[in-house]
C-alpha cells in the first residue's frame, strides 16, 4: 500500500495548526497510538515554525509538506526556500538558537522520529526528512 499527499502553506503562524492537523490525519491511516500522533504533531509544529521564524524570518514564502506512507512507514518532508541553516551540526545541539529561543525544536524532532535528516543550503532553503514507524509494527518485526 502506498498513499501520498502534499500540503503547501503560506509561511504564517496561523497555518501551524493546519499543518499539524493535516499531517496527523494523514498519519492516522497507520496504527499510531494517540501518544505517537502527539509526537508527530510536535515535530511538525517545530519544523513549520522553524521555517516561518528562521527560514523566512517573518517574510513571506511557501512551505511544502510532503507526506507518504509505504509499507508501515510514515515519511514526512518539510521544505522551505528560506535563508538556510549555516551550521547544521551546531543547530542540532540542545539549547543552540540564533533567535533567543529555546533551541530544542530540532532536538524534539530527532527524539520523536525514527529517522531524521536535514539538508540545507545558505540562501536556498532547508529540507527536513523524517520517518516514523508505529511502535506496534516495530514489535511485530522483532
Amino acid at each position: 500500500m502506498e498513499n501520498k499527499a502534499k500540503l503547501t502553506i503560506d509561511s504564517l503562524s496561523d497555518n501551524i495548526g493546519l499543518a499539524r492537523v493535516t499531517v496527523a490525519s494523514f498519519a492516522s491511516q497507520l496504527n499510531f497510538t494517540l501518544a505517537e500522533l502527539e509526537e508527530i504533531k510536535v515535530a511538525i509544529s517545530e519544523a513549520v515554525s522553524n521555517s516561518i521564524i528562521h527560514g523566512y524570518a517573518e517574510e513571506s514564502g511557501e512551505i511544502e509538506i510532503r507526506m507518504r506512507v509505504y509499507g508501515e512507514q510514515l515519511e514526512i518532508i518539510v521544505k522551505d526556500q528560506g535563508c538556510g541553516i549555516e551550521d547544521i551540526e551546531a543547530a542540532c545541539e540542545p539549547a543552540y538558537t540564533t533567535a533567543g529561543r529555546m533551541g530544542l525544536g530540532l532536538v524534539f524532532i530527532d527524539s520523536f522520529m525514527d529517522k531524521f535528516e536535514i539538508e540545507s543550503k545558505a540562501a536556498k532553503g532547508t529540507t527536513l526528512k523524517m520517518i516514523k514507524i508505529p511502535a506496534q509494527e516495530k514489535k511485530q518485526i522483532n
Partner: protein
Amino acid sequence: IGEIKRHLRDNNPIRVSRSLRDTAYKALQMKESLENKKSKEPNLNEIAEELGISREDIVYALDAIQDPISLFEPIYH
C-alpha cells in the same frame, strides 16, 4: 477521567465547541477503557472503530481541545 475533565474545563479556549469537546472526551475515555481491557495502548484506528467516529474527526477534535503547553510537560518533568 476526573483529571482529564478538569484539565479540559480549565484549558478550553472559548472557540472550542461543545461537540468537539464531546468527541475528544469520548476518544480519551475509549482509550482508557481499551487500555484497561487489553492492557496495551490502543491505536487511533481501534478507538475510532469502537466509537464509530472517523479517525480524522478524532484527530481534529483532540487538536482543538489541546493546550499547547501541556505537550511539553512530559519532556520537562
